[in-house]
């Protein structure tokens, strides 16, 4: 369970360039819940993720994961419990290392790196199964340099790595936005499969109204550092992209949608 209590983040505080990226955000995500987050550029979606994962520090407020207050934990410490996948497929995996070595790194999660050789045989067969399930043909290329793989393949490996050690929370930051439609579909299917199999808390930022309606149990709309509205329950089940776009337009300040958001 993830809970944010009145979290605020301000950049360049006290200067003419002051930006209030998050304003008193409160949010509760239950175990096994899948939440999608939409909002225009600069709404604070990525800052929200940064503050949860520890890449940014809040000015005020508290963040709890299960019963622990993680507000001031350093990034690497919370990453034991938080898996994160970025939009750019190059960010989640490491070029110059093979698939096997990348997975080995992810498997270190939660303990200190030691002088063990990269992978034990038991782990290797487990990696193999994980990759085989994706039907990407990667299971026989464990020793291929990750730099040689396509964006979709790298994103799929990143997802497996992010869920490898069963984190409590999975943060997906427009993780299919840079992929072609086919690859995006595959990665989404894998996302759902992994989330259900591990009973994860998932928060997914998306620019696509379609994805926001198709995936998850709840939609959150962010605007100017605030949560503007939430759609859950019965209303969420019957939600169509057109409804979301209407809600967008009804915002008082006339925030504009990009073409990608309308079409996606």
């Amino acid at each position, binding site marked *: 369970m993830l809970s944010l209590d009145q979290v605020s983040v301000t950049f360049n505080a006290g200067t003419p360039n002051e930006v209030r990226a998050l304003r008193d955000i409160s949010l509760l995500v239950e175990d096994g819940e899948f939440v999608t987050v939409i909002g225009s550029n600069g709404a604070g979606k990525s800052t929200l993720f940064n503050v949860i994962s520890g890449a940014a520090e809040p000015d005020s407020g508290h963040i709890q994961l299960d019963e622990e207050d993680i507000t001031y934990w350093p990034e690497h410490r919370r990453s034991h419990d938080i*898996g994160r996948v970025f939009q750019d497929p190059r960010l989640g995996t490491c070029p110059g290392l093979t698939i096997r070595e990348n997975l080995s790194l992810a498997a270190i999660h939660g303990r200190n790196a030691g002088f063990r050789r990269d992978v034990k045989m038991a782990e290797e067969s487990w990696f193999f199964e994980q990759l085989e399930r994706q039907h990407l043909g990667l299971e026989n290329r464990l020793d291929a340099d990750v730099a040689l793989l396509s964006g979709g393949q790298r994103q799929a490996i990143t997802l497996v790595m992010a869920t490898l050690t069963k984190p409590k929370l999975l943060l997906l930051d427009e993780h299919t936005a840079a992929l072609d439609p086919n690859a995006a579909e595959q990665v989404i299917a894998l996302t759902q499969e992994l989330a259900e199999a591990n009973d994860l808390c998932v928060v997914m930022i998306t620019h696509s109204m379609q994805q926001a309606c198709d995936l998850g149990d709840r939609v959150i709309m962010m605007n100017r550092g605030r949560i503007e509205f939430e759609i859950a329950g019965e209303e969420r089940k019957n939600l169509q992209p057109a409804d979301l776009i209407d809600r967008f337009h009804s915002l008082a300040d006339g925030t504009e949608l990009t073409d990608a958001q309308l079409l996606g």
Partner: protein
Amino acid sequence: MRGILLAVVVAGFMSLGNVNIGAIGQGLGYALAGVTVFMTFRVLGFVDLTVDGAFPIGGAACAILIVNGHSPEFAVLMGFVAGALTGLATALIDIIFKIEGLLASIIVITAAYTVTLHVMEGKSNIPLLGEETLISRHSKAFRTWLVEQFGDQMRRQSTNLLEIILFGFIVLIVLGILYWFLRTEIGLAIRATGKNPQMVRATGLNHNMMIVIGLMVANGLAGVAGSLVVQQFGFADVSLGFGLIVRGLAAVIIGEVLLRPRTVGQLLIAAVTGMLVFDISRAWIFSALDLPTTDIQFVSALVVLAALGAPRLYDRWKAYRQRLGG
């Protein structure tokens, strides 16, 4: 391009002949400093000039211990420790004060000069004449054996040959350990730190710790190189590390251009090969042009310029030819 370069190197070797096989031994002595630069620039992605300070500190520590009657093996080991501590200083300045590697290492080099002088008990030069070193310990027995086997004409080359064998052996062992290390979990994390620090943090590893370990190991190797070279030269000197970073960079680039390494093992071998090729081609230029030793730094700079510049010129020439439709 690669063919031409290989041809030049082979020609260099051939014309070198018996003139100066000492260049090979010297290249092997400096080889681990090339590995230092490979580790910092290529593996950690950290612009680190500390090698210029770690090398003389390692050499000084080694020399002072030998002079005080310790075994040369122990002295080399302490050379590693001294170099590693120099690397630690750079890492801590980078992490604590958030000063980038380039500046942090310049600060450390400046301070290292004084530290080296203090290690050498205030003297700027410590001769090892008559002391037991890795080389002097075996040189007599080796010379007798060599003359017995191959006749009296080998007498003059005996020290050079011994250096090549001893240092070649040490460099191989160190490369073996490093190859193992870079494939352990810590090694993987260090390699990932250079390519994708965000991912290292996302994996729950403290990427600052990886910079600390990486810089300590890398500069420890520079300390070992300093220890070997001190025993080879027969003295430690405070100015021994001058310009070493440029040499190390040249070694890494020459190795990459010549061997096109891909895997970790190949990359390590390329760094060592680069240093050998650098020293051999420099010795070759010296003997071919009959230059005085005062010109050594200038020739070094020229060799580095050639190693850095040639691939770029070649690329531009290729692009020019393509524009002409050739």
